[in-house]
């Protein structure tokens, strides 16, 4: 266990410590130490060592917090981070290069380019469900872009919080990167300070607080939120294959993923074929006594366990698979509920747990209509062997990301921007998108001293003739003539 210096000190002291930390980071940023590519590479390489050297401790901490199976921890918390680090290290040089742009005739002899520059001191607030990934992947973007970073892990995933607090100062420059800990009160106090960007992953309610704090300083924000990610199953479908992918993506991390398929919409016939397939797959994956399987996670806290059980108790649907639970173990079995109506308890908010409601709606059109009455989710899924069904859903929905015939995996592709829209957030990251999220795209134009005669066209006294010439020289078409 690691002593948390701010957790138990009297009020006033944490505030002072925080101010000192921010002062240190700002001084470091102003000294321009994070600007050279070499510095950023060193930090990213050190971050890579941090993960490699401490893989076992990371897996253990995640197990402590979420009973996360080793496989899930490696896949979704270690490997995905390593992948992002490889991507950043491979591409940093090119990301940092100026990007030359096309010009018009009037500016043909000038140099015009876009320069990516660091923003300054940025704040990253992580959530508890993938406490390593969702904190470190944004951090990679922030470091690569040349910023200093205040890192605020979630206090809910306490073991990981402790580990991050211990490891970061061991591997990264203490002057440029600092971990700040605490709960809601400490986070609100932290938010009163001025940052050059705030990256928040979590809930809508807290996001509003973050945005309001950011408004005071005109701080740009990236919000990675959630929502009820619908999963439509229509047309010709291989029920077994669909069931495999649906079970995997739904019950990974016991359903506590911002991009987990939240609820299913399908016809009665599909539902009748799907349920036994789901049941079979669950047994194939986790055995007949799922609570004993080492491959199933637990609910993060008693509070969330109670919340989920509340939903199960209030639902008017029928539990056809699972339903078993164990309060002491914070265990809820992978559960499938059918005959769920639109106004059911399970349809009120993002479930974020191992409960899968199935709503029976005969037509695809009606299903699409239903999803439109809800807020835009972070992900949208459709299972179908018919590409026309996939196309129809894609074109008649809006969501952060979209994936057909699978779940979650679209977020592991660094080439795709990962982020929400509407209530599921704004801004995006992963791969070079993370670098861009934490950069200022500065327009740079370097003019020469010649061609003052050409410039004369724009000076008063104004005339129609000058205007015609100007029209010609500043239009993009004039370039092709040249």
């Amino acid at each position, binding site marked *: 266990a690691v002593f948390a210096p701010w957790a138990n000190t009297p009020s006033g002291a944490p505030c002072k410590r925080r101010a000192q930390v921010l002062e240190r980071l700002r001084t470091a940023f102003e000294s321009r130490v994070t600007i050279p590519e070499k510095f950023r590479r060193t930090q990213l390489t050190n971050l890579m060592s941090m993960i490699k050297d401490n893989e076992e401790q990371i897996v253990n901490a995640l197990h402590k917090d979420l009973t996360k199976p080793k496989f899930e921890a490696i896949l979704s918390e270690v490997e995905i981070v390593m992948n992002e680090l490889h991507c950043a290290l491979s591409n940093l040089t090119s990301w940092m290069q100026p990007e030359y742009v096309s010009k018009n005739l009037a500016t043909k002899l000038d140099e*015009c380019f876009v320069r990516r520059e660091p923003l300054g001191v940025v704040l990253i607030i992580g959530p508890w469900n993938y406490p390593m990934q969702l904190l470190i992947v944004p951090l990679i973007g922030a470091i690569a872009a040349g910023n200093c970073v205040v890192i605020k892990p979630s206090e809910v995933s306490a073991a990981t919080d402790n580990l991050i607090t211990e490891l970061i100062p061991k591997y990264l420059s203490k002057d440029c990167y600092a971990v700040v800990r605490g709960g809601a009160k400490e986070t609100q106090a932290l938010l009163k300070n001025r940052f*050059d960007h705030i990256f928040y992953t979590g809930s809508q309610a807290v996001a509003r607080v973050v945005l309001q704090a950011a408004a005071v300083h005109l701080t740009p924000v990236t919000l990675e939120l959630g929502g009820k990610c619908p999963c439509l199953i229509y047309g010709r479908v291989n029920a077994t294959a669909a069931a495999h992918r649906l079970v995997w993506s739904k019950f990974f991390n016991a359903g506590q993923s911002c991009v987990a398929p939240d609820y299913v919409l399908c016809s009665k016939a599909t539902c009748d074929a799907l349920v036994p397939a789901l049941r079979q797959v669950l047994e194939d994956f986790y055995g007949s006594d799922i609570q004993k399987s080492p491959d199933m996670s637990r609910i993060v806290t008693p509070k969330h366990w109670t919340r989920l059980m509340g939903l199960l108790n209030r639902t008017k649907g029928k539990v056809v698979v699972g339903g078993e639970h164990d309060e002491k173990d914070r265990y809820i079995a992978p559960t499938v509920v059918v005959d769920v109506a639109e106004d059911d308890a399970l349809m009120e908010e993002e479930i974020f747990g191992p409960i899968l409601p199935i709503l029976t709606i005969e037509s695809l059109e009606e299903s699409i209509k239903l999803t439109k009455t809800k807020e835009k989710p972070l992900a949208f899924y459709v299972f179908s062997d018919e590409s026309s069904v996939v196309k129809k859903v894609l074109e008649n929905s809006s969501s952060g990301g979209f*994936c057909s015939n699978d779940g979650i995996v679209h977020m592991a592709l*660094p080439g795709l921007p990962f982020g929400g829209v509407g*209530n599921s957030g*704004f801004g995006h990251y992963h791969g070079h998108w993370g670098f861009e999220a934490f950069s200022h795209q500065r327009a*740079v134009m370097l003019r020469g001293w010649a061609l003052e005669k050409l410039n004369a066209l*724009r000076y008063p006294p104004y005339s129609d003739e000058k*205007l015609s010439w100007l029209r010609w020289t500043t239009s993009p078409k004039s370039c092709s003539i040249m």
Partner: protein
Amino acid sequence: MSREQQAVARARKAFETGRSKSVEYRINQLKNLQRLFSERQKEIAAAIKKDLNKTEVGAQFYETLGLEGEISLFIKNLKEWAAPRHVKKNLLTMSDTVYIHPEPLGVVLVIGAWNYPWAVTIRPLIGAIAAGNAAVVKPSEVCVHTSKVMEDLLPIYIDKELYPVVTGGVPETQELLRQKFDHIFYTGNSTVGKVIMEAAAKHLTPVTLELGGKSPCYIDKNCDISIACRRVTWGKYSNCGQTCIAPDYILCEPSIQNRVIEEVKKCIKEFYTDNPKTCPDYGRIINQRHFKRVMAMLEDSNIAVGGENDESDCYIAPTVLRDVKPEAKVMQEEIFGPLLPILPVSSLDEAIKLINKGEKPLALYVFSPDNKVIERMRDETSSGGFLANDCLVHYSVSALPFGGVGNSGIGCYHGKFSFDRLSHLRGCLVKKLKMEGVNDMRYPPHTLKKLGWYQWTSFPASCNVLRGAEKPKPFCS
């Protein structure tokens, strides 16, 4: 339901019909907008003359020329910009389709400003239309005549349900801000910018804020001072200094201050005659409130050129102030008027230090023949945009992002940047239900062997050809 609520509700309903989805529809709307400018030049110019005392040519040059170019650019490129953008895959997704699908956000609110009312109100609108959104247009009430012309003309040319014009002052704007939008695009000052952001916070609405700041202008003593001062004079006194990227103040060594003053004086005469008040190419301060605000800045300064003014006409002569100190009134906020303070500094170091004491500006100018000076200035400061050896013109290159940083704003636009800013770039992975065998590795029960295989196939480190992600290609023709 209030008038504002109705306009927003109608726009949302119109958006939900899906008619702005097709690229053809959007291009048609843009073509109609183009016709507005070619057919209604006279009405536009007459209103601008009343609001800002610009001539018809001046109005075209500063307002509509840029818009016409922008619309042409959009019409030419929209199909490509709106098409799916394919990205690199890994071995595991080799047989899948992976792309970014640009989609409309929904209903966008565009709040315009009064200084270049057409340019800063319509340019974001072009982006909003092109991206397939509905857009509520709120022109600035300060430019009274132009706002009326927008209200009258826009509904004649473009879809009046999808793109309603809502005029009004503070109460009407506040009522608009209570409604839910999918993006708010605001051009104006940072005080109101904070209010906008706070209102947007309630609905988790993303914003683009094009604000301002004090754009510094450093003149190296070794440069061609005559050319530099011509460019600065033009950049400063166009639109009577009411330009968000006008060079706000000059920094130079004391040894050249007199020369700078002399050259600027010469150019003022050349551009605006001996009596700028009677010159048709010289503008006016927008209203008496701003006139008083700018005049108050003169209190503790030393006037080297100009200073003449006439409150009844909102006229302030092109003015230069000398030996200005950082504590002076004129250095406390963005001037947004025809006063050009010169702050003598002993070195480039001192200039950079002074600039960094202030908030990050929207633009930063440096005049120097020495690339090292330019690079130092660029590397050691931060600003929305950076321009060496001229003023304002970086605005005209559509391929450059136009926007602020820090107090000068959030987000950027122009050309493709507008399109991307007002779109949702949706990441899409289209898989088939085949190849289950490959997926098998990730399913429980978990084994170390499966983990090894999965790691190899899903991560780019496994295949040099598939390394990492690619930056989007630079915007080029």
